[in-house]
């Protein structure tokens, strides 16, 4: 075992570092790029994606023919590690380039690929993914947004319904939407995917204000939106497979969950306080945070090793999100506790270094929910990894219409 790059990896890392050094400015210690508004962050991210794409770093693992680098997942991780040392905007293209476009590549027509892949890669066109609905969160099979064949002679569909939790919908040029086209099939059948221009008449976008006051997510209303049939992605009734293609791609993206210097910061903070250094109960909390944070890093190292050997990462990474959320929450609360009663002040009083603590603390509550709640993750691991039987399926053999009428 070792934690060093292979010679090939080291060469690639140097290449990335050299390119980054000429195109971005290094982070100073503890620095954390902030923007006055989400709109500014989106603009900055578009510009940085354009720069990367123009220089062959826009999509490391995509084939060269599509404008990618034809690289390995390990190279993708190496680039991200090096990129994290620079003061660049956090990407808003993970959904576009990591989920939607890869699914379009599999299920879209040649014309569609020719038109849409390049502008997405170059950061010109941002995509969003319209999946969850108010009554279909954990259980995506219950989406109700319907697409009906036009009856007025046009070769197209009328979409109506409501989506929710759509990231960056208010800034996206396009969206991929999962709809129900046949309610008389079982819940995972009878769904069809389309892509839509987000400016299409009848699409109404309302940002959702989160607990932390930010507005990354949106409700998206489809009020009888006309979509031509050529914007259908995959066959009619094949929407779930299109969606799974997108979600599977996400599963392969590893890492970047926790700030790397989490426990070191904490250790330094404790060391500066006489009381804390002599309180073993505080030190045990530091230890636990270290055990979780370093453990997550090691789990990721195992996953990367597998990727590097051309294997699938082990299933233990599935629980990483649960550990990460708890660790972030514990970290932030210990940082606050170390401030004594001043732990109740906001970043406005503590200074800008505190903004990260505040964001992570709120964020931890969100991580436990987004992309599958803790409970759903545990069900999946229990069933797929440990092989335990699933809950009794009450919806077996029923059509969507029957399920909804209950």
């Amino acid at each position, binding site marked *: 075992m070792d934690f060093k790059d292979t010679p090939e990896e080291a060469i690639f890392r140097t290449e990335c570092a050299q390119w980054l050094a000429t195109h971005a400015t290094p982070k100073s210690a503890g620095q954390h790029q902030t923007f006055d508004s989400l709109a500014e962050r989106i603009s900055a991210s578009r510009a940085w994606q354009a720069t990367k794409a123009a220089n062959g770093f826009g999509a490391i693992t995509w084939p060269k023919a599509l404008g990618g680098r034809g690289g390995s997942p390990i190279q993708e991780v190496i680039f991200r590690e090096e990129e994290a040392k620079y003061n660049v905007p956090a990407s808003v293209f993970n959904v576009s380039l990591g989920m939607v476009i890869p699914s379009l590549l599999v299920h879209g027509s040649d014309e569609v690929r020719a038109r849409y892949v390049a502008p997405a890669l170059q950061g010109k066109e941002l995509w969003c993914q319209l999946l969850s609905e108010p009554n279909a969160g954990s*259980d995506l099979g219950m989406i109700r947004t319907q697409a009906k064949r036009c009856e007025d002679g046009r070769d197209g569909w009328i979409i109506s319904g409501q989506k929710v939790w759509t990231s960056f919908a208010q800034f996206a040029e396009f969206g991929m939407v999962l709809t129900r086209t046949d309610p008389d099939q079982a819940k995972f059948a009878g769904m069809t995917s389309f892509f839509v221009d987000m400016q299409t008449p009848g699409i109404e976008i309302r940002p959702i204000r989160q607990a932390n006051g930010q507005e990354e997510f949106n409700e998206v209303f489809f009020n009888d939106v006309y979509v031509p049939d050529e914007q259908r992605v995959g066959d009619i009734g094949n929407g779930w497979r299109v969606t799974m293609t997108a979600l599977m791609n996400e599963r392969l993206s590893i890492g970047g969950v926790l700030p790397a210097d989490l426990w070191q910061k904490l250790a330094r903070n404790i060391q500066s306080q006489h009381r804390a250094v002599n309180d073993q109960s505080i030190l045990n909390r530091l230890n636990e945070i270290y055990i979780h944070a370093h453990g997550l890093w090691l789990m990721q190292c195992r996953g990367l090793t597998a990727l590097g050997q051309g294997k699938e990462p082990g299933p233990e990474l599935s629980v990483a999100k649960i550990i990460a959320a708890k660790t972030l929450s514990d970290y932030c609360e210990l940082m606050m506790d170390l401030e004594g009663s001043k732990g109740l002040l906001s970043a406005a009083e503590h200074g800008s270094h505190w903004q990260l603590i505040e964001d992570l603390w709120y964020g931890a509550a969100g991580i436990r929910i987004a992309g599958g709640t803790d409970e759903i993750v545990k069900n999946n691991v229990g069933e797929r990894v440990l092989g335990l039987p699933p809950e009794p399926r009450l919806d077996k053999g029923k059509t969507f219409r029957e399920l909804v009428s209950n």
Partner: protein
Amino acid sequence: MNFEFSEDQLQFRQEIRRFMVNEAPLSKTRAILESSEHLDRTVWQSMQAMGIQNIMSPEQCGGFGLGAYELCISAEEIGRQLAPIPSLGCLYLAQQLLLQCEPSNIRDDALSKIGEGSIGCLVVNIDDHASTDIQLADNMLTGTNELVHNANEADLFICHAKDSQGNQYITLSYRDTSMNTRALSLLDNSCSAGTVTLTQTPALILASGDDCNKILERCLNHAAILLSFEQLGAADSALEMATRYASERSAFGRIIGSYQGIKHKLVDAYTLNQLARVHCYYAAWAMASSPDDVSKAAATAIISSSKAMSFIAKENIQTHGGMGYTWEMDCHLFLKRSRHYAVALGPETHWQQQLSSCLLAHSTC
């Protein structure tokens, strides 16, 4: 054996609950959070009209002269509504401190003022109440305290001060131009705290010498007990909210509360809060009739109620799923408040140390 509130007290609780539900619905807390204000004076005034500020005040100050139980009960109901009022600074700290002082005209006037709706605050170093940066010289106070609960809205300032010889004093001042207060931005802006700077502020002496430490210690223990009751109510309220949602929302064809993943989690929350509840009751008893047990009971009450509140506030969001993370739902009000409660009177580690010292010393504290 009589370890329950009396019939009268339970009836009093029902009345206060009805009153608080009407006067301080969560929408008022939310409104404060959205505004630049840190408290809702109309709620405070209707509480004054109801007499809550007068519960423990002696009759010569216009109060009811009731014991600790009724104020504890009120604190629980204040918490249930996350009411945006200066309960911590004024009722749990300033008023409790005054009640620990020997009766005097100075003290009694202050209690009367609070009873009439004035807001008091306590200028003390919460994290180390043996020390203070406020200097007393020629009956004038000078110095700064960076974190004082409800300072910005306060009319009365009770200060812990030292003179040049290091002698301690507890003093009373009324707001005037010699004092400057600045509202602080908090993680939970439905609460209020401020920085207090005094420059030659006239001060009346409430207590002096070694008594000061004892008075402050008792006061902070009483404040911890009352804040624990407030948390108890808040945690109960968050648990009710989670239980209600879990009984209505469906996923995968079933009401989510029928899944053990949700059900057992909510039972864990219930268990933590029931444990906190009996420790709060015990602490109320100690406050009312067993001063020797107050230090141990206060630490136990605040540790157990903070643990319950923090757990329930988080699992309430989790039970609500994505909806729980929106501004629109009330879950985040409880989450923010849980952190405020957790450190407002010093972090858990402080109270753990107090509790273990008491346990090691057995029944001597």
